[in-house]
């Protein structure tokens, strides 16, 4: 029986190794290889790709510190963090409101939340071009109502990218938060009111702490794909503002510097790992605390 259990897992294990572990190892290997003259790479081990993240070699061979790529990494982490925080703040009331609806309405609303996933991501992000663009819905409304004539460009900046990313990933926050609020025992909220807590205190001391697992799960689901966002910078950032995803894509595409692309990809993976590790440790400490 025990033997069957081990062998029974074999297909899943093969799939994991073939589609996840092997490709990652290939990327690691490429990141330590030498750049080929026409793209691709040569099997000559070097750490040049990693050095390139921090330093540039000048024409005469001198090595200079170059913050250009660090700025891209910092911008990526910052935008992903902001996206996650904004999604949390927006998703919570929406999820809470959905839990208050009747059964059928709740189902319909949940389907509505996932509805954007039925449409291609490119189309959805493209729609924001029309909303935010010159002569777009927002600009026109502001002008026609006479609020302001000159609002500057809404597009092609960090803010536009942020709007696009929040829009793209917020369903991934709403769903787990909804699940955690739904599990909340309404008697606990009544008990809180009964014990002289106002609505605000109840939210802060009872509802939010008990919904934390849902918020944490949503944070992972939003933060990780936000780090790898490629479309939003291209369409809403106008291709002028780069994130790590674009940088990686460019190295394997136009720039034909595979080892450098692989090295940045590894950096991206490290950021994700660090975040997940932090989350996991937190959850573990909490579980241990509860057992004691």
């Amino acid at each position, binding site marked *: 029986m025990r033997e069957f259990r081990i062998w029974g897992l074999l297909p899943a294990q093969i799939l994991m190794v073939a589609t996840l572990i092997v490709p990652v190892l290939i990327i690691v290997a490429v990141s330590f290889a030498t750049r080929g003259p026409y793209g691709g790479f040569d099997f000559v081990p070097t750490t040049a790709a990693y050095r390139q993240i921090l330093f540039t070699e000048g024409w005469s061979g001198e090595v200079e510190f170059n913050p250009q790529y660090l700025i891209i990494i910092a911008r990526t982490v910052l935008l992903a963090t902001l996206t996650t925080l904004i999604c949390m703040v927006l998703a919570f009331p929406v999820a809470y409101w959905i839990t208050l609806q009747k059964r059928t309405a709740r189902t319909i609303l949940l389907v509505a939340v996932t509805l954007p996933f039925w449409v291609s991501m490119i189309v959805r992000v493209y729609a924001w071009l029309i909303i935010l663009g010159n002569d777009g819905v927002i600009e026109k409304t502001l002008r026609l109502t006479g609020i302001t004539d000159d609002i500057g460009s809404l597009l092609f900046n960090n803010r536009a990218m942020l709007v696009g990313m929040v829009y793209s990933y917020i369903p991934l926050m709403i769903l787990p938060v909804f699940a955690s609020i739904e599990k909340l*025992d309404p*008697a*606990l909220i*009544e*008990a*809180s*009111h*009964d*014990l*002289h*807590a*106002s609505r605000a*205190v109840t939210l802060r*001391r*009872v509802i939010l*702490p*008990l919904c934390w697992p849902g918020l944490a799960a949503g944070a992972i689901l939003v933060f990780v794909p936000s780090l790898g966002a490629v479309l939003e910078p291209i369409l809403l950032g106008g291709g002028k503002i780069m994130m790590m995803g674009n940088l990686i894509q460019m190295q394997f595409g136009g720039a034909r510097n595979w080892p450098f692309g692989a090295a940045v990809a590894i950096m991206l993976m490290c950021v994700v790992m660090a975040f997940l590790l932090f989350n996991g440790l937190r959850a573990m400490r909490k579980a241990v605390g*509860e057992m004691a």
Partner: protein
Amino acid sequence: MFGDFQALETVSFDIHDNEFFTLLGPSGCGKTTLLRMIAGFEVPTTGRIALHGKDIQGLPPHKRRVNTVFQNYALFPHMTLEQNIAYGLENLGWPSEKTRARVAEMLDLVHMSKFARRKPQQLSGGQRQRVALARALAPEPEVLLLDEPLSALDLKLRQAMREELRALQRQTGLTFVFVTHDQEEALDMSDRICVLGGGRIQQLGTPRDIYENPTNRFVANFIGETNFFDVDLLSIDGNMARVRTPLGLDLTVPQRNVRSSQQKVTLSLRPETIGLGDQASGEIMTGTVVATNYLGGHTQYIIRVGDMDIRVSRRNSWNDAETLAEGATVKLGFHPEAARVLGQ
């Protein structure tokens, strides 16, 4: 009110200070709705709720000096017992010194000091019950509401907690409003019981009053066990009524709420007031044993007299003759003063 269904008709009663007051009734009788109105979770469409003469109708739950012990305790799972008990005090703005002292006092009161740092999930049902009690008592409410607090416990624990609750009420001198569907619980603990049925007050009185002098058929049926007989009303004389039983016996029996215009009335006779065999006295009848149920402390018989099945219970004692066999012929007797004639 649930939707457009009227959960409660007009209900009006006073609860005294330092009283163990019980709202008793079958499920769906509106007793929990009534309790939730006192707590403030539900708003009556009409009427007034006053606490010590002060109208609390418009106050939200967190501004009422009333605390609740919930049916499934509703302890906060992310807080330790200490934090659970301190929660109400912190919300009232108690200084931390005073809060700490009160929490320790409450934990001591319910014998849970050892577990102060535990979380609710690490406790047994009875322990959670005690913590829920301590948490509700801590903010010094003027009234403590208890919503079927014992229903989630097993029998032995339930009986132990009954005594603890009663002792706690005496010790604190607080007004307890207790909701239950368990008549035994109500009789055991209450100073006064309000029997609710069909959204109305059926009777309000001491446990003894309610058991021995039920005002109507509903109460007599709901509290304890009884035999009902449809009898003809002959005449009423003050508190007594003269009735004729289907067996042709004329009896003079204490009456409640009977109007002289009624022809058919109900006669209620408790199983333990009927004597069997050599204990039979008063009005004597003869019947056949149809069924016997041995229940430890007492045995319950169903005895057929004419075409009526009469339920009789007899206390078992160490020198009892063996239980009466089914099919045996037996003498049974009762005193008319022990029976009650009830209006509808």
